[in-house]
């Protein structure tokens, strides 16, 4: 029995402790905002926060989550009002949109650590998140815009 918190709600898990968090979120809890992209921690589509740090939910198993706080895109803000979400909409970042929840969660973890990220900071933090549509320059602009709003 593993106890953890997801988006502020306590949960208990008694399935296969080797199952990645991604499938618990998606198949068990129906939190489908977190996406399956590669299953190997290579694309970032499944990024969530664990105790405020960005992690790839496809590569974190349930047994690594006992007592941890997990935040998904659904829990980032009450009504899509996180500064990054607002900046993402303002800049019309998404094309297909499939990777964007992971991008936003990765960026949210970045801003927690570095409220004023440089281009180099953005490259380092975001290089693990692939966008096949190629929205990177808008992602960069939206992160900078959100950083400005927070400051």
């Amino acid at each position: 029995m593993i106890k953890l918190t997801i988006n502020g709600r306590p949960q208990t898990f008694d399935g296969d402790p080797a199952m990645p968090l991604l499938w618990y979120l998606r198949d068990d809890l129906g939190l489908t905002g977190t996406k399956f992209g590669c299953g190997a921690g290579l694309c970032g589509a499944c990024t969530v926060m664990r105790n405020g740090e960005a992690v790839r939910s496809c590569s974190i198993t349930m047994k690594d989550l006992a007592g941890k706080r997990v935040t998904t895109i659904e829990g980032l803000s009450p009504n899509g009002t996180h500064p990054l979400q607002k900046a993402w909409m303002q800049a019309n970042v998404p094309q297909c949109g499939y990777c964007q929840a992971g991008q936003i969660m990765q960026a949210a973890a970045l801003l927690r650590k570095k409220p004023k990220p440089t281009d180099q900071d953005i490259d380092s933090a975001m290089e693990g998140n692939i966008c096949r549509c190629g929205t990177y320059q808008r992602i960069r602009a939206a992160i900078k815009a959100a950083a400005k709003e927070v400051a």
Partner: protein
Amino acid sequence: MSSVTNISRRGFLDGIFSAGAFVLAAQVLPKNAWGQTEEYAGKAAGALFHPSIYLGIEPDGTVYIVTHRSEMGTGIRTTLPLVAADELEADWKRVRVEQGIGDKNYGDQNTDGSKSIRGFFTAFRQAGASARVMLTSAAATQWNVPASECKAQLHQIIHTASGRRLGYGELVAAAAKLPVPKPETLQFKPKSGWRYIGDHAPNPQQIVDLADICTGKAIYGMDVKRDGMLYASIEHPPVMGGKVRSLDDKAALQVKGVRQTMTIDTFTPPYAFQPLGGVAVIADNTWSAFQGRKQLKIEWDDGPNAAYDSDQYKQYLLDTAKKPGKVVRNLGDVDAAFASGAKVIDASYYVPLLAHATMEPPVAVAEYRDGKVTAWAPTQNPQAVQDTVAKAMNLKPEDVTCHVSLLGGGFGRKSKPDYVAEAALISKKTGKPVKVVWSREDDIRFDYYHAVSGMYHKAAIGSNGMPTAWLQRSVFPSISAMNDASSVYGFDVEYGMGLNDLPYDIPNHRAENGAAQTHIRIGWFRSVANIYHVFSAQSFADELAHAAGRDPLEYQLALLGSGKVLDLKSQGVTNYWNYGEDYQRYPFDTKRLRRVLEIAGEKSGWGKRKPGNGWGIGIAAARSFTSYVASVVEVEVDSNGRIRIPHVYQVADAGLVVNPERARAQFEGAAVMGASLALSGEISVADGRVRQSNFHDFPVARINQAPRQTDVHIVESDELPGGVGEPGVPPIAPAFANAVFAAIGKRIRELPFSKQKLV
């Protein structure tokens, strides 16, 4: 092409719209164009008839617009409804967009070929204008004034003289009883009056799914869930056409959550859209299905494609391109020019197989019940889903209902519904709704790959370094092999993408296509054969410019001459594909190509900085999907051969652009995709097995590798709308290679760059 019909008075509407709704249908619409939300699907099932619906207005004023094209990131699901809403003078806040299901009555639903606006701009405009005219007429009758004294404005009809106003909802009952104006009598709003669309829209609108995407609520195929649904993952034959010789699934069935396995028959050639075959593991959740699959013990009968080796095949393509092939265009006599003793320059080029690698791998949910299938899929082509599922299960296409979710990327891969047929077959076997999930490894190993190609260019050089003759050959496995296993030559669609329409003003020109067998699934990938044809031709043009000691942009313009409409017919191109468009309406006008090149030169500051010492700038241009695009790529190459792309300039003449904001996004993304395939895109094959499997060995551009800044300039134009989804891709790779040459003097003739030694 479309006619609008008033279907408001028919009783069968009761189940869908409220009894008083005003509903217009256009001819291109299906009989059951219901939106796919649960609420509407439920109502539709109870209706006696399934009338065509394109645009409807409820008595409360809510406007419903059905869109029948698939949303994979271009914004089309928003842009086409905006066309109708603008012409209707609707308040966009009161418009609801409904996604159409697959139905032949829609006409073409295959969202590919950058053709949604080209194909349906007029139909959506007519639907909106018809409704506006009828609402105006209804108001005028009520006020007993001439309709000419009334105008439509933001969901109201206004009598200008008296200031009286009636909302659209209030007019629905009366408008519904009126005849539909004949299309030829419709007066469209002047461009200056456009509210939501065009270059100067005062109220441009964002995509309807934007907030849902940014909050994780948007539903992609991967996110569809049905009650009692099982999850399946399939071990496909590692070699195309291979079959299961023996299966031991004992260990797989021991995995917790695994329920059963199922062998799926390998397709009978040609492969078309059929499932590949293999063994499915069916489980209670995705993870268990993946785990069970690892425990399968399968012996394969690989079949004849096990001998396929992409290194040998590459050599075959390059060798064949040096030999005469099938002539697909001929002007003058290149052989005489080559024999004349003129200086000759020649070069071979190569572009490997590429995988689409959509961020959402192929996935589908299907539910078989009582001889009918309902599918939910991220598909570019819901009618192909109907046909493919029906064929796989001996049903009629109309027994297959296909709901279209958002697509997590498409790029051509999701026009092929093999994965939906897999879900339907497994649902029938299990008696439950089934979701088939492809892993990333499945996606990379079992794609419908962008064709590998070998090309050869040869020119005879005359005065001023300009060519007097240009021979162009291309050899590639053809997409036509998808439907004809014996096909070894390309077809008009592939020829028309850069092989039989080289735009230069040269007296002697010949284009040829060599024969090549197909050993792996080939399909269309964003901009298709343009990728390799434009890469080779635009690289070669740059080589000729440098050989002549002339500036590449100035040389390009000289090659084009003063500009004209290409007369391809007189040069043996009897069936120029022209992206499916009539040549009279959409001629290939090289003046427009000149113009985008000139603008690209201005915007990029071409010629202001001398290239060299690791900094370079390159240019390339092409017409594709009836749009004209010039790309300038700026590069920095350091002493270790590491490449940065500080800036890309994309200049597009796409005719009338309905949604410039989304068009710019497409050209930004195209710069990234073009740079990505040039930098690192390669699928290779040994023993018939694809070597790559995930993003570690099939890298795609990341934020630190993509162009840092792409500036898009869209030429303001009243020409007919052209494509915007694909045309931004083809010139990027050659402009990039030309820039690298300018920076360090290294000519790259084979992609990807990552395989070349740069320094």
